[in-house]
């Protein structure tokens, strides 16, 4: 079965005809060419695919595209302001919050959802929040530092 899905992605209205089994992450990557959202697992555990759906962070690999019909989606491509990195991206850059970078889009989308409700998270709160984001490179320490610095920069 084919379904027509219309979304707002990073502020732009888009639509595509996809199979009903198409995952949101597949539609983003394969139909819309937004390959910043990654797929790191088959078990909904790694968080490389995290995007915002109507403002909340969700795993784009565990949501059918058609379930998101009409939703407002934000991906990592929609975070920077032109060539100027978002303060959270800049903080990852400055604090060595990435090595291979595979997990980074998901980490940043997850971090932005955390600071939305908790602008000054403690180290413990950051670590707990990252339960759904796996990183095979950094050992997490610099990711936690990055999010702390990014949150501080966003507070101004």
């Amino acid at each position: 079965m084919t379904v027509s899905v219309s979304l707002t992605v990073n502020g732009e209205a888009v639509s595509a005809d996809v199979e009903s089994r198409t995952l949101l992450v597949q539609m983003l990557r394969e139909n819309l060419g937004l390959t910043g959202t990654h797929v790191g697992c088959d078990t909904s555990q790694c968080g490389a695919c995290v995007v915002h759906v109507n403002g909340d962070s969700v795993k784009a690999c565990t949501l059918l595209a058609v379930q998101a019909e009409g939703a407002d989606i934000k991906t990592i491509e929609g975070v920077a302001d032109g060539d100027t990195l978002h303060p959270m991206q800049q903080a990852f850059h400055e604090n060595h919050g990435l090595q291979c970078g595979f997990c980074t889009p998901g980490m940043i989308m997850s971090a932005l959802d955390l600071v939305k409700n908790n602008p000054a998270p403690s180290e413990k709160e950051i670590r707990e929040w990252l339960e759904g984001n796996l990183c095979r490179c950094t050992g997490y320490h610099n990711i936690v530092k990055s999010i702390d610095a990014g949150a501080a920069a966003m507070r101004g």
Partner: protein
Amino acid sequence: MYNFEYKKAGSVDEAAGIVGADDEAKLLAGGMTYIPTLKQRLAAPTTVVDIGGIGGLDGIAVDGNGVTIGAMARHAAVAASTDVAAAIPALADLASHIGDPQVRNRGTLGGSVANNDPAADYPAALVGLGATVQTNKRTIAADEFFTGLFETALGQDEVVTSVSFPRAGKAAYMKFPNPASRYAIVGVFAAQAADGVRVAVTGAGPCVFRVGEMEAALAANWSADSVANIKVSADGMNEDIHASAEYRAHLVTVMAKRAVAKAG
């Protein structure tokens, strides 16, 4: 994933009608269990009926008796609800430790209880508090609802619409989480529930169960020491790479002690 027909239900009756007429049709709520199942090709439904668009299924209402939570209420909404935290703090606390933030942003109470994963958290709260499950057809006591491994009392054309949790005296939930998924290796909900002391265990066996000996000891004397020497048998307990049956049996006593201590 095998392909299927997708239908967005406009009402509970419509959803129940579709799954009632076709054994191979399946409801989809938050999808945090069912979509991974589809991805692994462990299911091949004819039709997936999305109940996420049905209005009025995600409410949280508090009255003198307790809290009634709609089937589509997300774990994050229950965890963040000041009403739930005021009426039954152990319930909000339990919801806040399900999976990870992204799982909590999509996963629902109805999906969790209908799925009855042996390691799920909510079944411990339902049985630990003596809750009742409301469906489109009837009301089912939690003690009768969870019938076995991934099995419930629900019929094919039955949709969970809400769960009512009665207020409790002291109550707390403690789990020993799986380090990767955060599912319970063993979780214990201990409560001075509306109808007496209840101790409900999830993760350890094929299905949530109560420990009568602990309940009697706590009814006589509510203290962690009362359960410290009560052992449960390892016979029939779950066993996997994370924990043997003997270890799970041991954890039941440890988590029960910690839950009672946490409840105060």
